[in-house]
């Protein structure tokens, strides 16, 4: 009859768990789900990463193409992130053009890239005013079980770390560019932004890394993105229950701790594939 | 375009017609077997097809049904190859939506819709080749199709366009005459009662000339009426001959 209670009165069901300081999946309020990352599994992409956060699965593939730099900043390249929430990942999404959540997530990722300076766009320029790299970062959610922003940010970062770009030179005489597909160089990753999301329950209780169910029942969410120096690359609280400044500070502190764990994981995974 | 002479000093138009002369009108009813009514018309090089379905039960949402009359539903579309430059979409663009609305208004005025409450009549017209007067050809074709479908109308609806060049009203404009940018009037007329079902004017025209132009257009409508009437009579005779004995 527990399932019946859960379907009929989901919020009440949840509150009973929270009273005991635990969650229905057995986690404590401040506990993250198991996080795994798999790098370079998509060989058709120039860089890729598959991130799992519990059940939530996100894949990011980076494809590099060449284009003329933007007119207003001829010494820069482009990073074009897009988050897709296909109907495959959850019944809540319909097939067709991206909905509000996907659009908002794309914008969030774009903001994180811009705010954190994860990559200097100047690094992507090959010939001033003539040729620059465009990095298309397509982030696709495969299994939607909450906390898509953390998973997407993580997938983006690890996929970018996996990118190998072919060497390009511009021939002075002909003005044509020459691509050497054999010689590949990694990207320079300047910063490592890591996102940490919280759900707010009944206006006061903060839980980390919410599942889809928890997100639906929560009265609000907050996402904090920090880099390795503890600077905030994004504070994103799209409405919902009000929080005091102190609570917000609490979130930031926890986000800084989380950053260290995630960074450790990234280093480990990168190292594990290095020897090849 | 300014260099093009629309009306020569001798009073001939670019395609050799006189000012009040119509292009050759040829028409046929009952082109398709599956539709309730259908017709095809050629006015010079403008060719249009019209089919009518209904009156039938409301399709789609029933909430659109009108309790005291039939809903007239139209769609105007142009074959992608009908114009000299290929069109990307047959319908759904702004121009077609406007035409669709015009057709709907025209035929709501002519069909005795109160005879079929809560039902729907579909009129679909298709321009196969466009050479000026698309709206008019569509109205004329649709009139024949409605008659073919056996739906009671107050009267025929006949449409024709008219322009005004060098102080002379021109009837039944062709594409180049339309494209010259001068004033043009599209008139849909119920010829016996001389009631106007729809009148639309583009560009500028001095008020003093309006009457002449409308006069020219309505004369043209009546001329079209004569042709359509003959087509209908021939068709009816043919059909009844088949039915009889």
């Amino acid at each position, binding site marked *: 009859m527990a399932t019946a209670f859960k379907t009929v009165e989901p919020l009440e069901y949840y509150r009973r768990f929270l009273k005991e300081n635990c969650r229905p999946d057995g986690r404590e309020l401040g506990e993250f789900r198991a996080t795994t990352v798999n790098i370079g599994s998509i060989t058709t992409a120039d860089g890729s990463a598959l991130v799992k956060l519990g059940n939530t699965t996100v894949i990011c593939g980076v494809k590099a193409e060449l284009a003329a730099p933007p007119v207003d900043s001829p010494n820069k390249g482009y990073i074009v992130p897009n988050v897709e929430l296909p109907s495959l990942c959850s019944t809540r999404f319909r097939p067709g053009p991206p909905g*509000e959540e996907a659009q908002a997530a794309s914008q969030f990722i774009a903001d994180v890239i811009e705010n954190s300076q994860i990559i200097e766009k100047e690094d992507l320029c090959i010939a001033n005013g003539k040729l620059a790299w465009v990095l298309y970062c397509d982030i696709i959610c495969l299994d939607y079980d909450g906390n898509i922003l953390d998973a997407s940010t993580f997938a983006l970062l690890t996929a970018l770390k996996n990118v190998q770009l072919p060497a390009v030179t511009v021939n002075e005489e002909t003005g044509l560019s020459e691509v050497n597909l054999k010689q590949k160089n990694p990207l320079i990753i300047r910063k490592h932004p890591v996102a940490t999301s919280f759900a707010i329950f009944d206006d006061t209780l903060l839980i980390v890394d919410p599942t889809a169910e928890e997100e639906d029942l929560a009265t609000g969410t907050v996402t904090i993105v920090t880099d390795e120096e503890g600077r905030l690359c994004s504070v994103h*609280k799209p409405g919902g229950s009000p929080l005091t400044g102190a609570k917000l500070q609490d979130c930031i502190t926890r986000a800084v701790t989380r950053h260290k764990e995630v960074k450790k994981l990234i280093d480990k995974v990168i190292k594990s594939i290095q020897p090849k | 375009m300014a260099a093009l002479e629309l009306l020569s000093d001798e009073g001939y138009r670019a395609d050799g017609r006189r000012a009040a002369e119509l292009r050759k009108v040829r028409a046929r009813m009952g082109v398709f077997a599956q539709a309730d009514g259908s017709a095809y018309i050629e006015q010079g090089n403008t060719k249009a097809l019209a089919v009518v379905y209904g009156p039938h039960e409301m399709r789609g949402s029933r909430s659109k049904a009108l309790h005291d009359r039939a809903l007239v539903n139209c769609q105007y579309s142009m074959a992608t190859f009908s114009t000299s430059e290929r069109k990307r979409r047959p319908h759904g663009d702004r121009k077609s939506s406007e035409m669709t609305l015009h057709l709907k208004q025209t035929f709501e005025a002519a069909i005795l819709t109160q005879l079929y409450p809560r039902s729907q009549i579909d009129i679909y017209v298709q321009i196969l080749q466009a050479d000026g007067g698309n709206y008019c050809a569509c109205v004329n074709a649709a009139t024949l199709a409605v008659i073919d479908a056996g739906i009671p109308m107050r009267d025929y609806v006949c449409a024709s366009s008219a322009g005004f060049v060098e102080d002379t009203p021109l009837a039944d404009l062709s594409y180049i005459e339309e494209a010259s940018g001068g004033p043009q009037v599209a008139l849909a007329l119920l010829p016996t009662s001389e009631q106007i079902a729809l009148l639309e004017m583009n560009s500028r025209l001095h008020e003093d000339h309006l009457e002449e132009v409308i006069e020219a257009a309505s004369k043209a409508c009546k001329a079209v009426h004569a042709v359509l009437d003959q087509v209908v009579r021939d068709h009816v005779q043919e059909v009844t001959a088949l039915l009889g004995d």
Partner: protein
Amino acid sequence: MATAEEEEDGGGGGGCCLRPFSCEQGLLSRPDGSAAFIQGDTSVLAGLYGPGEVKGSKELPDQAALEVLLRPKVGLPAVTPRLGRGGGAQREQLIRRTCEAVLLGALHPRTAVTLVLQVLSDIGSLLSCCLNAACLGLLDAGLPLASLFCGVTCALRPDGRLLLDPTARQEQEARAVLTFAIDSADGKVLAATAKGSCSAEELQQCLAAAQRAAATIFRFYRDSLRRKYSKW
């Protein structure tokens, strides 16, 4: 028409004060509630429809369904490729969720409330202006609210100084721009979003400044409402 003149700082909001702001309520006749909010040279017009009939799939069994449409001055509402501006869907989501947090939607279950925000001019601090217009729109429509909210934008200059209600140029020059939605009950944060990076201390400073500014704005809300109802 109500105006509040804060200590003016030549050209735009300088230091810890806001640009001159004003509002006008009930200026449209078709919507159930409307308000224009002008903040320096940035102005947003809000129109509110509802609670009204809801379209099938959007219906919520125990809540009013709120829809927020943010119409830019030109072009289509969209995620624009030029970063720093736009992000239509994300802003719509933020404004909607902020309104949902204060709107007592349970009092109007199975209805729809639509908030249309039309940007009239954008010379900086657009999001906060949208939030303010939204709140006044909700008020003008007479919808039951748990509390009020206001939006405050805060910029951090490269030299580390803090700047409230920046103009577009000041936003561009700034190292970071933070926007908060503050609720009137006890000055808590309803929404927050940031461009650029800053430290946690700086965030707290900005928040404190925003909370102080919010008090001014709430006073202004109160005054303009008093003026509105005293006319009757």
